[in-house]
């Protein structure tokens, strides 16, 4: 039984989605519990996987689909699923956040999409299975297929938002398909040269024998560009703010934290395992360009967020700048940089999830998230407001929260590599986020709404319903917890996940 755990992680949400779609023909209300149980199974198995991984000596769990295609003279032939230190953490993050978001989205979905929620949860579950598939797979073509599963369901989820969301979703579809196609083309180049698609086989072939091959290099660049389009890295970030702003609350809260982070993971996996860090370091021209681009990405995201007055747009531009952190950290290609990037995938998934959940809560009660509508938010929704403050503090990087530690590693890495513009970009972006935090405090705490004007004596306290509030608070607490347990996370998982870094 336990040897089949890896497949359960992906299979449970897929089956959940199929059964939810079938059940909703009969009775639309049934689809929610079906999806929740699927996600719960997936969540449990991802936790068991972590324990199994910690107990195993090799630090890697392989699973051959259908028990077919074991190692022979040609290497691994069938499709393989791999769990190691790098992706087990991300698997758990994805399953936890998606389970919490599913519980959270129940109320907002039934309000926002009153009579059209029939297939919402089926798509929701399909999206989660796509993301989990990207994380767990050990085959680069399979990664493409899961990428498209996740992408197609996310186009539909965004288009649930009505109004401007159709156009936003269409733009996302164009960019997303282009990214996936470029990725596929890159896979083609790699396949021509190596004759295999398995990541484990590729990691044996490419770094050892094909270092100087032109085709492999072109494949590398195409795969990277494809992944960057998917994660909205700087020149290709145009689709993200609109798509996530106009999506309904439930899908926004799921997509924003997970979809981009999982693409970052895919990029890391290609960089670290398939082409080794050594390969990345030997192409220094790209490295400087990418580092420059990620600095620009951080600055652009931060400055655009300063010009917005819609809290959700601000959060979307935060994602753009956070993507800059992660890509930059990964491309520093030294130990602290990679540690910071990997750690930041988890930290940022939690942060973005928290801020989108808070926004959803505010949207549910107040109906608007423009700054001018948020006067005296603290007095109306104290818990939500505190959660917002903690999340913003994490974005800035205030010590007990997880944002501090990732920034610490990233700055250390940048200093080691001598990329000072990256350090400056990081500090400026922290500064701008601090400005936004003080604006929120100014609006939400200092502007006390005058109850006499509105005709009633006291300000009514009205938190979002418990099913929304509790997941929000859990995620916000986890920001501090991840920060406190940084040491354990880094030594037990992240340090083991990274390969030996060649010293220059």
């Amino acid at each position, binding site marked *: 039984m336990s040897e089949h755990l890896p497949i359960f992680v992906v299979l449970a949400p897929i089956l959940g989605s199929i059964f939810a779609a079938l059940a909703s023909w009969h009775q639309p209300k049934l689809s929610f519990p079906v999806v929740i149980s699927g996600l719960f199974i997936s969540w449990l198995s991802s936790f068991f996987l972590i324990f199994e991984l910690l107990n195993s000596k090799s630090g890697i769990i392989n699973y051959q689909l259908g028990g077919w295609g074991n190692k022979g003279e040609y290497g691994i032939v069938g499709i393989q699923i791999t769990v190691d230190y790098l992706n087990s953490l991300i698997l758990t993050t994805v399953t936890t956040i998606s389970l919490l978001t599913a519980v959270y989205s129940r109320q907002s979905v039934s309000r926002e999409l009153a009579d059209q929620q029939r297939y919402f949860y089926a798509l929701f579950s399909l999206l989660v299975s796509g993301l989990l598939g990207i994380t767990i797979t050990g085959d680069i073509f399979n990664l493409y297929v899961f990428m498209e599963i996740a992408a197609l369901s996310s186009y*539909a989820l965004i288009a649930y938002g009505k109004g401007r969301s159709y156009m936003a979703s269409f733009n996302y579809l164009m960019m997303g398909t282009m990214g996936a196609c470029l990725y596929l083309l890159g896979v083609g180049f790699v396949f021509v040269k190596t004759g295999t698609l398995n990541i484990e086989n590729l990691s044996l072939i490419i770094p050892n024998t094909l270092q100087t091959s032109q085709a492999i290099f072109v494949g590398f660049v195409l795969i990277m560009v494809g992944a960057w389009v998917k994660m909205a890295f700087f020149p290709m970030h145009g689709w993200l703010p609109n798509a996530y702003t106009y999506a309904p609350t439930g899908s926004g809260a799921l997509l924003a934290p997970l979809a981009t982070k999982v693409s970052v993971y895919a990029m890391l996996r290609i960089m670290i395992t398939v082409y080794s860090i050594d390969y990345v370091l030997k192409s220094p021209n790209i490295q400087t360009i990418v580092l420059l681009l990620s600095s620009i990405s951080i600055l652009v995201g931060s400055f655009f967020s300063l010009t917005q007055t819609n809290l959700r747009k601000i959060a979307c531009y935060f994602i753009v700048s956070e993507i800059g952190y992660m890509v930059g950290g990964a491309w520093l290609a030294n130990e602290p940089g990679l540690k910071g990037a990997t750690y930041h995938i988890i930290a940022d998934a939690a942060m973005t999830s928290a801020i989108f959940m808070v926004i959803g809560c505010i949207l549910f009660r107040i109906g608007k998230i423009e700054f001018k509508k948020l006067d005296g938010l603290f007095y109306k929704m104290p818990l939500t407001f505190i959660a917002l403050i903690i999340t913003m503090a994490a974005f800035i990087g205030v010590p007990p929260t997880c944002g501090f530690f990732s920034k610490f590693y990233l700055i250390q890495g940048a200093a080691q590599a001598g990329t000072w513009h990256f350090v400056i970009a990081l500090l400026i972006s922290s500064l701008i986020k601090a400005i936004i935090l003080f604006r929120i405090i100014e609006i939400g705490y200092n502007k006390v709404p005058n109850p006499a004007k509105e005709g009633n004596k006291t300000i009514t306290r009205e938190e979002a319903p418990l099913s929304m509030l509790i997941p929000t608070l859990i995620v916000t607490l986890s920001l501090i917890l991840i920060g406190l347990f940084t040491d354990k996370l880094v030594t037990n998982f992240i340090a083991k996940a990274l390969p030996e870094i060649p010293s220059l």
Partner: protein
Amino acid sequence: MMTGLWSMLAQSNLIKKCIGMAIFQTGIILFFISIGAKNDALIPIITEGANHSFVNPNIDKVTNPLTQILMLTAIVVGVAALGVGLALAQKVYQQHDSFDEDEILNNQTK
């Protein structure tokens, strides 16, 4: 392939963008199929010999089945993406009475 990419990026008409996407995907599919092709090759099927035994085909005389299988998946994905794209384009048309990107943007900012 490049025609498709250009059309996806530069055209302002949504339907033309969808067409560009289809061309781009077809280009990639052809690229993959061309990887697996060989001169004078047959389809890769294991034939039945005498006494119900299986005869493995001569590897030099069959095309590579792996690329074809991969592209079957890619075709399915491409058709799905095209379908979703056209459905969204239709929704946009219902809203704005136009397929032109600039007109839609003007409509939205009004």
